């Protein structure tokens, strides 16, 4: 059987075990359903709006470039996925910077763990494809090999935003105390 399938199975298993361990450990603190308070709901609404606007802007620019030059810097499915990622990252970072991504009583560590896990999984996927000889750029265009890399970058941005915001939150808490 192909090694890739075994790696995928291992990644899924680690993910499931990690989720069970973390959710059991934080079971007393985390509610069954994630709950956002009224301020967070309002901010999340704004976050979705800015994510949507960013995505629309990206696709408009993409369409203009294609129609004007007839060329694109990457394969169509990759470019579409990057647009979706931009929307999601803008929404997530907007919510993180305003303390609205993580619900009331939800564990910060759990969110960071999941983010870091997804980041690593995508990086491993990318490195594996490169090791198998897949090209990042072919005929002057980015190939779909760049997809896991772009997803990893998205998770990296979210992770950095989470850690930076946490740093400021701790400072706020110290000032309050």
């Amino acid at each position: 059987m192909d090694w890739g399938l075994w790696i995928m199975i291992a990644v899924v298993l680690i993910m499931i075990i990690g989720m069970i361990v973390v959710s059991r450990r934080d079971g007393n603190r985390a509610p069954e359903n994630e709950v956002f308070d009224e301020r967070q709901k309002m901010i999340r609404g704004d976050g979705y709006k800015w994510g949507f606007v960013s995505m629309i802007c990206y696709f408009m620019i993409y369409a203009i470039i294609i129609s004007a030059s007839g060329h694109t810097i990457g394969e169509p499915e990759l470019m579409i996925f990057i647009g979706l990622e931009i929307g999601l990252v803008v929404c997530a970072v907007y919510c993180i910077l305003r303390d609205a991504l993580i619900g009331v009583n939800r564990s910060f560590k759990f969110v960071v763990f999941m983010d870091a896990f997804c980041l690593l999984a995508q990086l491993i996927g990318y490195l594996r494809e490169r090791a198998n000889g897949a090209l990042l750029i072919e005929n002057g265009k980015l190939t779909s090999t760049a997809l896991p890399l772009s997803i990893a970058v998205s998770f990296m941005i979210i992770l950095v935003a989470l850690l930076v915001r946490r740093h400021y939150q701790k400072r706020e808490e110290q000032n309050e105390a």
Partner: protein
Amino acid sequence: MKNLKLKAARASLDLSQEELAGKVGVSRQTISAIEKGDYNPTIKLCVAICRVLGRTLDDLFWEEPKEDR
């Protein structure tokens, strides 16, 4: 405008932002935002905060209009 009345009422009961937030079911950052004047809470949340702190809405959220000179 900062809500110093809320901060004072909370401090008088020796409650941290985290503890008050837990009692009214919101995040600590929401209580912090209200105290800083960055967020105007709904009447529902105002009432919940008043109940926990044993104060009235007037005590915590009523601002006297400033007179123009």
